């Protein structure tokens, strides 16, 4: 061979090797990249950027329609309430005689100044105490007049008379949850309303307290209740809430600038200021400026700083307007309410549906695997296995579509029948087995046994029909006329058409092929010699299976269950199509649910890029990814160990 050609071949070899190495490195990187990218998107949720000094904005600050006061509004009337679009406003104030005056305004386009103005009908009461604050409740029906001492009066906004409901802000006793506002507060005390109007802040020297309105029954006055409080070690001078609510800037005497996130109750950052601050103002949702004697300094916050913490995602949080801490997922809440990022309802829905799916998939899948792997002759198995794996070819979209269109509308009506059939089939088969045992158990010819499933098919259909009828007649006999109305009336169980049971069943049908396939592989790979030896010594099939085959195949069966669980947890289309998609936290199987994967599919395309909602969704996806990855790794390790164990035995 000529040396030129040998060199060329060597070059080709090296080049090819390089190409292969680069390609596989890219594959490895992309695999890690999925995890890395999702982690990087979720990271700013938990790692705050904090306050960073920023340059003064070059472009003029956009006009804030909310704080603007039209010139024709009398000076003593201040903005007391406004909606999100700044199109509706209420002004309230005390005139020179100390009487209440107010007006409602409506504007079609905030950029021009064409207001429709209408004075409010208020009771003719005059107040002489200084330092009163006037607040409107979130439903715009009540007016609260709050004194510096801490007592307040509630007046309905549109009444001629003055049926006042005088109530005091709670007084402290031994109950530290309700501290008292001191009489004769220091001059630095103040009150400011949080944007959205659902809560307001009061502060004295060392405390800031957030109070919120709790709606009462129709016609009754709402309650004002302490939501949370923050203690600071240096005297508070000024408190300013951010435009979208939730974050509060605090200037203290030290002099320090602090930012507090109310919902997650975290101090995002604190910075020492140089000089004596005069005023703090939010330029935008993430930008602060502090005014000093002759200059101004600007500060920038990260967009998702403090918005979410591990506690706020996983623990119950006390949200504005609710009477107790709760788990909630409402990332885009209506009417200025704060976004709620509680992942627990979603995780709960996911696990609930997956468990119901496994409840169906494991008995049926492992049972079928035992039969096909243990009882069938190799020839029969070669035809049976592909036939059963035909179910695996059904994409979950199709299963979900059929369930949603054909079963969901009738599920409540069919529920007693389905339960009846589910009980009748195994019981009927057991009875048949016991009465026919002489034919099958003692002879157990493999060929005959192999045909048993086909012979059983019409039997199963018959049993299902009998069970369905029995279930329906039993349910008709219950007080209330049907199972569902009995449950709803007697036990207070709420039942919905698109409930967890239905979703779980559909998911179970989707998961069965996977569980069957893996379990069957495990059972079939047990050497036939073992079972044959046991049978030859006189043990029955059940004894051989339980004592000889099962211990060897157990790791594979466990792996099948784990992988099946992983699949059920990640199932998206069935939940999207069949579920009512309400994020509920309920043990009730007959209520709706929403899963993590369905939430990702529905909300991610709408979430603004790099917003808190976007990042929280990525964090949820990361959690799902890690869960399935860990499950699958464990299953794989279990399988590898059992395979090595088997090889050692040989």
């Amino acid at each position, binding site marked *: 061979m000529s040396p030129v050609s040998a060199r060329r*071949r*060597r070059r080709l*070899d090296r080049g*090819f*090797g390089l*190409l*292969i190495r680069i*390609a*596989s490195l890219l*594959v490895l990187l992309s*695999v890690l*990249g999925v995890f890395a990218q*999702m982690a990087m998107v979720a990271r700013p949720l938990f790692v705050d950027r904090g306050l960073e000094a920023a340059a003064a904005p070059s472009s003029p600050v956009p006009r804030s329609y909310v704080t603007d006061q039209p010139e024709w509004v009398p000076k003593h009337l201040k903005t007391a309430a406004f909606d999100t679009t700044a199109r509706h406003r209420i002004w309230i104030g005390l005139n020179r005689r100390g009487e209440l005056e107010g007006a409602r305004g409506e504007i079609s386009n905030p950029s021009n100044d064409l207001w429709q103005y209408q004075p409010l009908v208020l009771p003719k009461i005059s107040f002489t105490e200084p330092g009163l604050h006037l607040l409107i409740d979130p439903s715009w029906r009540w007016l609260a007049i709050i004194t510096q001492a801490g007592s307040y009066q509630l007046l309905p906004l549109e009444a001629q008379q003055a049926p006042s409901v005088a109530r005091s802000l709670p007084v402290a006793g031994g109950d530290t949850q309700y501290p008292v506002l001191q009489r004769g507060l220091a001059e630095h005390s103040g009150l400011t309303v949080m944007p959205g109007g659902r809560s307001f802040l009061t502060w004295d020297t060392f405390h800031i307290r957030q109070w919120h309105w709790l709606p009462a029954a129709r016609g009754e006055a709402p309650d004002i209740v302490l939501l949370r409080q923050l203690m600071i070690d240096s005297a508070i001078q000024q408190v300013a809430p951010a435009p979208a609510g939730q974050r509060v800037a605090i200037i203290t005497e030290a002099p320090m600038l602090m930012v507090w996130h109310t919902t997650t109750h975290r101090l995002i950052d604190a910075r020492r200021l140089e000089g004596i601050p005069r005023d703090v103002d939010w330029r935008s949702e993430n930008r602060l400026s502090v005014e000093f004697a002759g200059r101004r300094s600007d500060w920038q916050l990260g967009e998702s700083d403090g918005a979410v913490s591990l506690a706020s995602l996983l623990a119950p949080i006390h949200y504005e307007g609710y009477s107790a801490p709760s788990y909630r997922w409402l990332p885009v809440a209506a009417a200025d309410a704060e976004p709620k990022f509680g992942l627990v309802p979603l995780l709960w829905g996911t696990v609930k549906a997956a468990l119901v799916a496994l409840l169906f998939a494991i008995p*049926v*899948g492992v*049972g*079928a695997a035992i*039969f*096909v792997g243990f*009882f069938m002759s190799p020839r029969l198995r070669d035809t049976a296995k592909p*036939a*059963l794996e035909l*179910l695996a070819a*059904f*994409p979950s*979209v*199709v299963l*979900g*579509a*059929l369930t949603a*269109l*054909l079963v969901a509308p009738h599920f409540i009506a069919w529920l007693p029948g389905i339960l009846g059939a589910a009980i009748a089939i*195994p019981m009927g*088969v057991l009875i048949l*087995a*016991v009465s026919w045992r002489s034919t*099958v158990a003692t002879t*157990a010819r493999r060929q005959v046994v192999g045909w048993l499933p086909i012979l*059983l*098919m019409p039997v*199963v259909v018959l049993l299902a029909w009998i069970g369905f009828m029995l279930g329906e007649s039993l349910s008709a006999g219950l007080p209330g006329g049907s199972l569902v109305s009995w449950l709803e009336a007697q036990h207070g169980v709420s039942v919905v058409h698109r409930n967890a049971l239905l979703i779980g069943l559909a998911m179970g049908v989707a998961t069965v092929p996977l569980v069957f396939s893996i379990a069957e592989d495990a059972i079939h790979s047990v050497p036939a010699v073992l079972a044959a030896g046991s049978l030859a010594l006189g*043990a029955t*099939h*059940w004894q051989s299976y339980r004592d000889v085959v099962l211990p060897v195949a157990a790791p594979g069966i466990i792996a099948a269950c784990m992988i099946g669980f*992983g*699949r059920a947890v*990640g199932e*998206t*289309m069935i939940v999207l199509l069949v579920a009512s998609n309400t994020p509920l936290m309920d043990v009730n199987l007959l209520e709706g649910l929403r899963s993590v994967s369905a939430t*990702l*599919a529905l909300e*991610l395309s709408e979430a603004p*890029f790099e917003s808190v909602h976007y990042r929280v969704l990525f964090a949820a*996806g990361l959690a*799902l*990814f890690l869960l*399935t*990855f860990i499950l*699958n790794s464990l299953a794989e390790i279990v399988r*590898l160990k059992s395979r090595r164990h088997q090889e050692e035995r040989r």
Partner: protein
Amino acid sequence: MRSGAVTLQRLRSAAMIWLTATSVSLLALITAGLLAVLLVGAILWLIEPGTGQSGSWASLLENLGNFFFAKPGEGLGYTGVLPAIVGTSILVLLMTAVVGPFGVAAAIYLSEYARSSRYTDLVRIAVQNLAGVPAIIYGVFGLGFFVYGVGGTLDGLWFSESLPQPTLGTPGLMWAALTLALLNLPVVIVASLEGLGRLPQSLREGSYALGATRAETILRVVLPAAAPSMLTGIILAIARAAGEVAPLMLVGAVKYAPSLPVSTAAPFIHLEQKFMHLGFHVYDATLHASIPEGRVGLVSATALLLIMVIVTLNLIAIRLRQKLHYRYREERGF
């Protein structure tokens, strides 16, 4: 041996046999039932599509034609599935162009180049795991990295005049193909590794003994021999691409795309366009089809088409795999 104990054991054994046989029957019944529902639903609908016209066997062909080729605005209440078929095909082609070379290359590296060690074991476990990661996660990654990340950056570089209207920084055909390629990478790698592992070492040794380099051995001996396995992997990937809807909801599939992603105008394949997909069509028809009486039938017909495609692909893949097992089962005696 007491006869009572024996009888109990025998009863238990009989019960076990019958109950497990019932599981098999149940599975077979469910599969047959689903297929039957789809078939009956599709055929009944093709006879009478619920669009107001009275049906007969004669109109079956006409409705079949409408099912494939109907355009919006024809007053039928649904559009034909041909754009969905075209969209799915183009998507699958693009995906195969990416996942084929990379998957096979990774499998070749693991099988031929890397020394068998703890590290390669870990890589194999990792790859197998990724096959079990929910498809929606790949969609999430695709949206964040491909659409907003790569697409957004490219928009800033090449299409900055049309910002803030996105050109590439929005879901589209290319990003969907890349996302599905990532999704199916484990499938292709595992199938290729399986094929490469079944090849007897004597094959490679013979080639080396005759003086071939490693590249030549791989290109001329190993690859052709393992090709059926690799093909199996690709076919399974295609079947999965046709059926997985969840990731596509985020990266490019839409209910209705006004134009096909292929056209006679340059550049012939429009990678930035949104496209229609058969699986997504089933999803959308279930939720939003505008023919209330015919909805079940329309969904059945579309689903039946989808399943026929997937089952055909799976059958081809199974056949290929069986051929390869058979071929190398005999040679293992060496």
